[in-house]
């Protein structure tokens, strides 16, 4: 289906989610999240802990059942599709390096599964010998030597190596939308930088529409075409490239306090 924004890009509107409704633990995690990304746009999402960033990504990927809201990716309405069907359009890298790969399978088996994202699986070989060259080339970019360890089990890799592999898997077949949830947060600084570089390289060259959550203000300011700030289950700041260009970390903190206190006054 087409909408006002045209076919391409990502259009998220009116996402609402309350956990444990009607109980003492009731928690309104999303209170109407609206987001629009142009095709190829690299958006960075920031916001305090518990502001609903991960919940938003989980809702977009279909891992989480929404109370209300609509998700359109590349002109397709995702709202009624289960997570595995949305995988045809989107790829994900999680915060926990353990979540993105199958530890008991080898590196090349993981890549073979990623290479078939969005296809109908059948009785063809799950991993063809001819695929290996492509896998090696994709891994070489990381500079971690993983290209020489194709038949090693992923369980043998470090967190940083696993996260790098997950990133390569997510972008092996360019998705219409790439979702990154603080995917460098659990890594040591060196590994985090490596994975971020690999991310930028994978995303920029092929202009993959990307939604990246980060807790790192400098990352948020330095990179990306769009900056989105969430608070209390809402988007409270949404800056395009031009507005973002002159921004400093201090500005950002100030803007955050402005918006939050404005809201408090209004309420």
């Amino acid at each position: 289906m087409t909408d006002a924004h045209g076919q391409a890009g990502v259009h998220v509107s009116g996402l609402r989610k309350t956990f444990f409704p009607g109980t003492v633990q009731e928690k309104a995690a999303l209170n109407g999240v609206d987001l629009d990304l142009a095709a190829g746009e690299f958006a960075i999402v920031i916001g305090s802990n518990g502001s609903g960033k991960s919940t938003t990504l989980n809702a977009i990927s279909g891992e989480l059942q929404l109370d209300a809201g609509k998700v359109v990716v590349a002109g397709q309405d995702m709202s009624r599709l289960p997570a595995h069907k949305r995988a045809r359009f989107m790829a994900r890298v999680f915060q926990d390096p353990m979540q993105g790969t199958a530890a008991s399978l080898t590196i090349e088996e993981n890549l073979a599964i990623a290479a078939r994202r969005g296809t109908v699986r059948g009785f063809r070989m799950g991993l063809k010998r001819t695929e290996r060259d492509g896998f090696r080339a994709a891994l070489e970019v990381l500079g971690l030597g993983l290209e020489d360890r194709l038949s090693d089990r992923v369980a043998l890799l470090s967190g940083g190596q696993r996260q790098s592999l997950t990133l390569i898997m997510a972008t092996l077949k360019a998705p219409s939308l790439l979702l990154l949830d603080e995917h460098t947060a659990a890594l040591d600084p060196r590994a985090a930088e490596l994975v971020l570089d690999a991310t930028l390289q994978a995303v920029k060259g092929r202009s993959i529409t990307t939604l990246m959550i980060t807790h790192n203000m400098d990352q948020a300011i330095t990179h990306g075409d769009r900056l989105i700030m969430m608070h209390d289950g809402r988007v409270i700041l949404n800056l395009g490239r031009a507005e973002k260009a002159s921004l400093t970390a201090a500005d950002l903190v100030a803007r955050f306090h402005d918006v939050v206190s404005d809201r408090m006054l209004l309420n």
Partner: protein
Amino acid sequence: MEFLHTYFNLIPVSLAQGAVYAFVALGVMIPFRLLSLPDLTAEGSFPLGGAVAAAMLAGGSGIASAILAALLAGALAGCLTALIHLAFKVTSLLAGIIVLTMLFSINIRVMGKPNTALFSHDTLFTAFLGADGGAPLTQFALLAVLLLIVCGALHWFLLTELGLGLRAVGSNQMMARAHGLSTRAFVIAGLGLAGCLAALGGATMSQYQSYADVNMGVGVLVIGLAGTILGEAILGRDTLLRQIAAPVVGSLFYFQFVAMALSLGFKPSDLKLLTGLFVLAALGAPILKARLDRRAGSPRP
């Protein structure tokens, strides 16, 4: 040496028995190892396969159709466990217990009585090995050929796109969904496949002993588990081939230990206790070892 003499005489029979139970051991390995989903349905799908095959053979059906019907019944039992687990959000263990309990009644319905004798009917063994059903060693050879075919087919399947998907689902469901694999469909299909293998074991057993009994499944899960653990201790599980061969090799070895225990004067009724103790030891050993290592090495930070 009285013990050795008795044991040597038991070797051919114990090899044949081990080969029969190797099918169930494969059916136990799949949920526990490939799907990481503990499942007890084998305890019901094994006698189900035995009952269906026996009832069909006694009713005059051909051997191939009797075995096929048993496979189908086993697949349905496995799928049912998966569906209960997924739809009602009960653990796979409880879902399996519910199914195997229901299967007890169904197995009696299938046979029309609690047991069925096949002594005057053709079986897999009389068809290939002559009217007397063959000597234990030739029976073992026949079963070994069957096992090779089954293991070969399983190995081929697990290397296909679907088989790789199944292993991914067993390893990491989140990753599997993120790459377009329906975890529900694979869990249903995987337990169905396990049910097939357990039922094949039952169908083979009822023809091997020319007799199906509604209680023939009691303890079969722990035997399958013991075979799998033992095989993994011998072969490791570093490659897919080893993981598939482990339950088969382990089952053959397990029944050697059974024969030794019997030769030492244990009663057949003691075997379940011994098997249970063996599985307990195998499960407990790594934990005890870690605890000892910790005590011996530096204290934890």
